[in-house]
């Protein structure tokens, strides 16, 4: 009994020992998964002595929170996540414009003109297929958008749902670009593709594990997610369509009314500079650096070699996004 009581007291003591807060801190919501974000924040702490308090949310959840907290912001910086999440945030007036020293060096598609957000990385789409599946069907890794329409893929593809995922929106705009922005032609293709889709997942990477495990034959994913699947030991092929495929920038932004603006700006300076982006490869974070001063990791460059990758035109995508997604929901997603 005595032992039990001692154990209880020890447990209570441990439970009550809350985390002590350091003096210099910056509070962050990260949209990058923790295994990518954590090493970057550790590098930042090493370089500046500023501690990063962070928690990870998917892009939609992070944005919903920042909007709800607008009158009393809990964080200083929104870190990572596709540009379109940030575009939605601008409409809600949640960001404070800030131009880091790297701002001027970046090409136009990697920054918002007023400095509402700045890109920290680039993330192209790829086709990812399960090698065992390809072998069983006698197929080669798909090398064209048309290849995915092969009946052998029937009920075998998983890709993201455009209602929740930036990955999906980038994919749909890729198809539009490939079809020279002829919407009817693009939608005719998307409807045909639907026949082979097993399920549209809620998150961009939702289909990677099923493909890795062979529950699905393949899909269209961001390269980071595809390479992460491969590095976990799943036997998958990564390929690109000869017609080309889109890419989406990952961004960072300062929150309006941030309680630690000085530290927040330092984090943005760090993230947009070569200081952080040159560490991406070292930590096996397979984003393509956005800062032109940083060379793409040779291993990553090897995979990208020969691939046709085009950026999605911000103005065109911004002006048409809602209409295109609505049309996709109506014509493609619903029961056929």
């Amino acid at each position, binding site marked *: 009994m005595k032992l039990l009581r001692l154990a209880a007291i020890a447990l209570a003591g*441990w*439970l*009550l020992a*809350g*985390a002590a807060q350091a003096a210099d801190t910056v*509070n962050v919501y990260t949209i990058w*998964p*923790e*295994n990518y974000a954590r090493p970057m924040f550790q590098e930042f702490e090493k370089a500046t002595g500023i501690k990063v*308090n962070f*928690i*990870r*949310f*998917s892009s*939609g*959840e992070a*944005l*919903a*929170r920042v*909007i*709800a*907290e607008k*009158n*009393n912001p*809990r*964080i200083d910086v929104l870190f990572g996540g596709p540009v379109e999440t940030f575009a*939605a945030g601008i409409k*809600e007036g949640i960001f404070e414009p800030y131009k880091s020293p790297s701002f001027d060096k970046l090409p136009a598609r990697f920054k918002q003109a007023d400095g509402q957000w700045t890109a920290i990385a680039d993330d192209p789409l790829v086709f990812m297929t399960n090698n065992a599946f390809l072998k069983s069907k006698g197929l080669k890794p798909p090398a064209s958008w048309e290849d995915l329409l092969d009946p052998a893929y*029937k*009920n*075998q593809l998983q890709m993201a*749902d455009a*209602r*929740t*995922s930036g990955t999906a929106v980038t994919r749909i705009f890729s198809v539009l670009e490939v079809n020279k922005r002829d919407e009817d032609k693009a939608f005719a293709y998307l409807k045909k593709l639907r026949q082979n*889709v*097993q*399920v*549209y997942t*809620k*998150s961009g990477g939702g289909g*990677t*594990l*099923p493909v*890795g*495990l*062979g*529950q699905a034959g393949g899909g269209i994913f961001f390269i980071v*997610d595809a390479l*992460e*699947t491969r590095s*976990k*030991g*799943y*036997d998958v092929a990564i390929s690109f369509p000869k017609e080309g495929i889109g890419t989406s920038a990952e961004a960072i932004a300062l929150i309006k009314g941030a309680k630690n603006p000085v530290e927040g700006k330092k984090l943005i300076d760090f993230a947009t500079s070569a200081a952080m982006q040159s560490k991406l490869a070292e930590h096996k974070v397979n984003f393509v650096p956005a800062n032109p001063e940083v060379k793409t990791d040779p291993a990553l460059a090897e995979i990208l070699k020969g691939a046709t990758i085009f950026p999605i035109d911000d103005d065109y995508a911004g002006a048409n996004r809602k209409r295109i*997604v609505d049309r996709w*929901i109506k014509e493609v*997603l*619903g*029961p056929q």
Partner: protein
Amino acid sequence: MRTERAREGRRTLGDPALLGVLAVLWLLLALFVLYPLAELLVRAFSDDGRFTLEPLLSSLADAGHRAAFVNSLVLATTVGVLGTALGLLFALTATRSGLSRHWLTALDAAALLPLVSPPFTTSIAIIFSFGPKGFISHHLLGLDNVTAYGFWSTALAETLTYFPIAYLTLRPILSAIDPNLEEMAFSLGGSRWRIFRTVTMPLCVPGFANAFLLLFAASLADFATPLILAGNSFAVLPTQAYLQITGMFDFKGGAVLSLMLLVPAIGVYLAQRRWVGRRTYVTVTGKVGQRSRSRAVSPVAAAGLAAASVAVAAVILYFYALLLYASLVVAFGANETFTLRHYHVIFTEGLPAIRDTLVIALIGMPLGGLYGVLVGWLIARRRFPGRQAMEVVSMINYALPGTIVGIAYLMAFNDPPLALTGGVMIIVACYVFRYSPTGIRATVALLQQIDRSIEEASASLGAGTVQTFRRVTLPLIAPAFFAGLGVVFIRSMTAISATIFLVSLSWTLITVRILENMTELALGPAAAFSVFVIVVVFAVVACLSAVLRRLRTPTAGAAAQSLLGG
């Protein structure tokens, strides 16, 4: 009738203790249920400070949303019926089949597994088992290219996840039925089937109604299961609401869709009141008869019950064996070498989440248990102005999808003077007010079986409300108290939909870590966390049962013996 009610009202007002309790409860309900709901309504129906019905009308006009509404009702009804049936099967097996204690403990444990496991686990196990390359569908049955997405897999996953609620609700009721009652009917020459139909089942009606209501509401509010399993042709409202908010950044639309869910939830509640509420189901009258071994179920039927329960339990155990296996191999499906590395990860990197979750669950547990029996007792036993309103209000947070509750809390408690976000109390409050309805319903159902005269005797001997409650009622409803307590604890360890919006830089949760692991494709740590959660919950539940056994309350023996397994 009216004068009687007025007299009851006066009696309430004349009882300062009762009045105080009512005031505190209403204050809490106003703060943690009504105020966030009001905040939500304002968001949904105002545009630049003006009232507008536009979001509601456009939602109703959308054929996709109407289909989702119908789908939600179909799914919730299916889950309600199947889950209650499965719960009844287990409850009958537990109380009437005469299985040995060890078997019953094992069955209890299996039945509790789905309830105590973190979100997504059942869904993922179903995909692994019934997917195109699923273990059962492909490797055992040799089927190719089957689909694991759609109505039936969603209904199956939700039924397996929620039927333990029905079991927990029905079991104390079945065991509280005095076996002598069945015995009497038996000696009067009734056939077993007739007794079952005309004595046992009618006495369970409040239990059925409560179980159905709880399952219906749980399914209606569940977004995690359909998110993974519903696929593209079977949309349901909570998932649509979640997508609307987190995907389309359309908060108004999401709020409206969620509010639509309140309509069927309240409808079922009212129906339940109408058909069940007025009858009496008294079987505990104070003088507990000599317990006799029930002969109401024939040996053949008992064996059938046991076999069916064991079969269901086997399916559940198989699902969780898969989970345990995934936590012990390097990468499930790719590199199946044995490793303990994932457990090392959760006890190093994952330690803060474990600590936070335990603190939150331990604070919430007693609060939730107490709140549950208090409200349940007031609703079932006291006549006071606003009683029905209290019953409805106490169910609201349970019936709303978690996403919406989470966001409503976030908006309501972000600004001073009520700046609770970022702290621990907002998470605790969310759990208590969202998951105590199980305790409330269990208390109500149990009290409907206990004759009022017991409490009236106490009152007429001069005891006040507080004393009667503490010394007479509380011991009688201890099983419901512990059920409520247990559910709040379990949910604090396993729920995610609401609290993902309430975790903060300083307070995080295991379930959020699990979701994070899944995003990182780290199936191993996710499985290890899940196994850890299940082990902790089982340990706590075992302690609760031990306490309960010690209490040896005067409520019909078996009910007190063990409610939560063991």
